[in-house]
């Protein structure tokens, strides 16, 4: 087994063990962090590996979340098929967004993704009777059951989050070392050269958007099912910026980086808000420092200095 695979499986085992060690408050946080890390990992597929900067990733998260949530609310579906609907909705939606947005590049691409995301947010508000708009709705505990497991139970919830996280993490390890993963990096580094090596850059970018959007959607659907709440705030602009921050902090183009970034940001906010109301200021200062002194993010620096083998 390669060092990279050992390292990531080791990380999953550590997280599994932590559930039994950590106080309930922190293991609850960690479950949330793992789901958000899947969102960030999805973001990283586009931003970190392919070089596509999206400013509207909340739309993918929201489509997954509402895909699952509305299936339950409107059609009385069970949790597992609702999760499936969330995933299918994410695939189809990200395919549509990819086909349209990839006609643009650079700044125009950023603006198009931002606008699509706003459209999704406004649609959620517009169909208030179905979605309950800003207020959102709760997925009742009775529905949050899969194969006899109660997803609202903290331990079950933790392991459900870990399962999703583990699949995403190992999938990423596999992807970045695959032929396709290398072509994505080639496109990030020099798209024209990649094209002139005979790679269909457009098809690869579309694949990146669909995979990225589907991972974000899976995170959204899981978030709704595990934590029971579905709301329009998950489709707002700030929620699109979060995965960008997580990835920048943790290390763009590293597999574990998005998780590290999510963990870091989550606790930075958690700790700083216990002694000041200005926790956003603290986050801002840390971000400025990081961009000044560690542009490649935490894991990017680790890879550069100590662990060149890190994918």
């Amino acid at each position, binding site marked *: 087994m390669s060092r990279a695979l050992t390292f990531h499986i080791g990380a999953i085992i550590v997280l599994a063990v932590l559930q039994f060690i950590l106080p309930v408050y922190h293991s609850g946080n960690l479950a949330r962090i793992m789901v958000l890390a899947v969102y960030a990992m999805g973001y990283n597929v586009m931003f970190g590996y392919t070089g596509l900067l999206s400013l509207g990733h909340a739309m993918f998260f929201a489509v997954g979340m509402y895909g699952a949530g509305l299936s339950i609310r409107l059609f009385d579906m069970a949790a597992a098929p609702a999760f499936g609907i969330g995933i299918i909705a994410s695939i189809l939606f990200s395919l549509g967004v990819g086909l349209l947005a990839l006609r643009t590049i650079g700044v125009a691409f950023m603006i198009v993704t931002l606008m699509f995301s706003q459209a999704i947010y406004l649609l959620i508000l517009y169909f208030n009777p179905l979605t309950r708009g800003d207020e959102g709705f709760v997925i009742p505990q009775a529905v949050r059951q899969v194969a006899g497991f109660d997803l609202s139970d903290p331990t079950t919830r933790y392991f459900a989050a870990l399962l999703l996280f583990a699949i995403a993490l190992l999938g990423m390890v596999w992807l970045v070392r695959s032929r396709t993963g290398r072509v994505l990096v080639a496109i990030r580094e*020099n798209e024209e*050269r990649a*094209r*002139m*090596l005979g790679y269909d850059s457009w098809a690869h970018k579309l694949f990146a958007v669909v995979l990225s959007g589907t991972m974000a959607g899976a995170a959204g659907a899981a978030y709704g099912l595990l934590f029971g709440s579905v709301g329009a705030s998950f489709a707002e602009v700030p929620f699109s910026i979060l995965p960008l921050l997580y990835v920048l902090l943790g290390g763009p183009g590293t597999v574990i980086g998005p998780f590290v970034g999510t963990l870091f940001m989550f606790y930075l906010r958690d700790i700083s808000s216990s002694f000041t109301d200005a926790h956003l200021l603290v986050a801002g200062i840390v971000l400025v420092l990081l961009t000044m002194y560690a542009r490649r993010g935490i894991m990017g620096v680790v890879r550069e200095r100590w662990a060149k083998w890190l994918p």
Partner: protein
Amino acid sequence: MAAVILLSTRGLSRHFGGLRAVENVDFDLPEGEIRALIGPNGAGKTTFVSMLCGRIPASNGQITFAGRDVTRMPAHKRVQMGIAYTFQITSIFDALSVRENVELSVQRCLGADRGQLAAASDALLERVGLLDRAEQVAADMAYGHQRLLEIAMGLGQRPRLLILDEPTQGLSDGEIADFIRLIREVARDTTVLLIEHNIDVVMALAQKITVMNFGAIIAEGTPEEIHANEVVQAAYLGG
């Protein structure tokens, strides 16, 4: 035995606004030949070969490669058919290692088997003399070495037609001698179209020379014929 025509163009033109960068070019390249394309700066050489490989679309005319009309075919498909292009302005994957650069060029034909990729890449790097730099970050290499890396990436695709756009620019005399040897070897099973300013390289390699000026072909022939051609001398001396 009449040589098979691998690549030909008919009436190929490219206009940028009012500028006729390439105008009505009919060009035939037989399989197996080393052809040099020369001409003063701004003659339209790079524009012409860019249309061949699909980097820029043609305004008019037709391109046939290996018996197929490729005029409207996207660049990556032409590359898959066997047209490899090395850029005039070095275009490599800066942040990746030299070996990763070459691996990307060979993996399309070879698949993703790690061992096979590394072996094929190292063989190529040895051929261009960069094997001892395989681990280095591509952008950290000297310009001449980056040019050699480009050539290795061109060869890595195992092309039927290798288009080299000023490959020896920035190479030392020793490296140029190695380059000439390398291209002779490659030309045994590959057709080569070479844009080159270094006249010694042209004379050493080319079986035929095509001369362009003001977007049109003004002469074509063996090196001796071109050497003696008055029109060509006028174009170069500005007479």
